[in-house]
């Protein structure tokens, strides 16, 4: 009997988070007395599955069907359901990405069992399992119990690092052909639109953030200048996007982007918890705020208690002066 890990991939390119799920699943499978299996679905599955044995998968199921041309939450969910029924898997694990959570929700709906999303720890016992999961995008934790014949759990992002197993597993390849109703093609990806390439808010080493304190859309020009001087990008708070000063793609936080730069310069941002969860992975935080009591200031590594409209241009000027 197995613990089945659903591996996400994009047309053959395995998602890093799938390896995190395998790393999380290895000790869990041992503790639960289950074999570790993986499933990769659709076109590109074989290419995507090359490293799975090294990461601990005893069995690698490769699911294929004419309908599985690309990602499709319902077709993937139904495939996993049929594999669970065929193999008698006792638990299914996925990464806590949008795709991983969505596929497991589909599996849960179809099997009519619970699904516990975004777990940080899982203790399997003979009967119910207990776990700690994240709420509020990570601002709060919930201890919960899970009672079900088939246990469905996703692993919160970045809880464990993707790393190969101490010794590789067998990785026996097992092709699987699900029986899929044509109606499931309604939710398969039909096209892609490429927008931008290069550094993004999520990956930039420097983020210059602005909040309500910036005051206007034009007020962001000095922040843009500083960001470009540092080879970084501009981020913002929800107060800013709500005012229409910046596009939502610049928003940092629970319902925006999680950033992890070397330094986050947060100016005119109070540091509400929903903003903070998106910013806290920054290695250094410099807060610029007129209020010394602002949450962003008290949680930052460094702070300047002053008007951002004076401080930001002064930083840019000082950098240019030193560069000559």
């Amino acid at each position, binding site marked *: 009997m197995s613990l089945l890990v659903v591996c996400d991939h994009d047309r053959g390119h395995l998602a890093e988070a799938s390896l995190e799920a395998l790393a999380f699943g290895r000790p869990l499978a041992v503790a639960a007395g289950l074999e570790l299996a993986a499933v990769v679905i659709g076109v590109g599955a074989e290419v995507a599955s090359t490293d799975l044995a090294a990461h601990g998968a005893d069995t690698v199921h490769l699911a294929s069907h004419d309908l599985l041309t690309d990602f499709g*939450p*319902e077709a993937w969910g139904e495939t996993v359901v049929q594999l669970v029924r065929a193999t008698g898997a006792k638990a299914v694990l996925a990464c806590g990405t949008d795709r991983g959570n*969505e596929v497991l*929700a589909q599996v849960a*709906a179809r099997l009519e069992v*619970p699904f*516990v*999303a*975004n777990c940080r720890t899982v203790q399997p016992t003979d009967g119910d399992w*207990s776990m700690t999961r994240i709420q*509020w995008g*990570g*601002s*709060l*934790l*919930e*201890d*919960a119990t*899970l*009672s*079900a014949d088939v246990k469905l759990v996703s692993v919160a992002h970045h809880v464990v690092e993707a790393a190969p197993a101490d010794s590789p597993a067998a990785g026996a390849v097992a092709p699987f052909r699900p029986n899929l109703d044509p*109606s499931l093609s*309604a*939710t398969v990806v*039909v*096209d*892609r*639109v*490429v927008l931008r*390439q290069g550094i*993004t808010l999520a990956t930039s*080493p420097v983020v210059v953030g602005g909040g309500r304190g910036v005051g206007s859309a034009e007020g962001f020009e000095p922040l843009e200048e500083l960001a470009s001087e*540092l*080879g*970084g990008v501009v981020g913002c708070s929800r107060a800013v*996007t*709500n005012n229409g000063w910046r596009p939502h*793609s610049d928003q940092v936080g*629970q*319902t*925006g982007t999680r950033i992890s730069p*070397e*330094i986050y310069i947060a100016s005119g941002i*109070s540091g*509400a918890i*929903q903003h903070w969860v998106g910013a806290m992975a920054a290695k250094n935080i*410099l*807060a610029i705020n007129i209020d010394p009591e602002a*949450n962003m200031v008290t949680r*930052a*590594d*460094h702070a*300047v*208690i*002053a008007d951002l409209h004076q*401080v930001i241009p*002064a*930083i840019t*000027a000082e*950098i240019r002066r030193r560069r000559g």
Partner: protein
Amino acid sequence: MRILVCVKRVPAPGARINVTADGQDVDSAHLGFTTSPHEECAVEEAVRLTEVHGGEVTVLTLGPVEAEEQLRYAASVGAHHLVLVPITEVDWDPQRTAAALAGAVADVEAVGGPFDLILFGNESADAGGFQVGVRVAHALGRPMVNGIKGIDVADGVASARREIDGGFEVYNVPLPAVLGVKEGINLPRYPTMKGRLASKKAEVVMDERSAGAGGQERVRLHRPVETVSETAILGTGPEAAPAIVDLLEELGVLS
């Protein structure tokens, strides 16, 4: 078009989220309440779609009777019909919530006719179970895609865009369909004075429902352990610039 949107009332915490002594709920004694940003955008999207294609928007919530506040807010920005499934417990687990919502949708459809589109948030702001919309869609036998940041409707098909690294995936989902949307799909409008006044008079239909508990049970809520760092104050004005640039140099971001 007939569109239904499911929204959830959640507290609006500030600098940190506190938990009640019994660990069962967020301590909201001094907090206001709001609708999750994803769902606020779902309401806006529904209103915009009916502005273009004609039709009506119904907003449905399962929560305490006070959730009437969030329904009336939706009415103030353009929703036409409001339905509340009242509960007295803190929060229902995802299976139980979905079963009750699916039942409530069936009730509303029995009277007013089927919905072309049902919108959810990508995930609820508080519980974040990532599943209620998927479960309701499955119960109703309709196709569902989550994580949507763009919707165009034409010829009975919803063309839906989902953000991926550096672009979008496109899904063409035949109606009737269910979509989960994310903040950023639009910029929600603010209520007008007229909208606010009208929303005060809007009727809230109460739909009492029961549903059995699912298999996920809350033991307790708690705050994650925080590493508190000392904040070094680098200055109180633009004269802090050299110290800041020293810091940037030290961190190696000034290449």
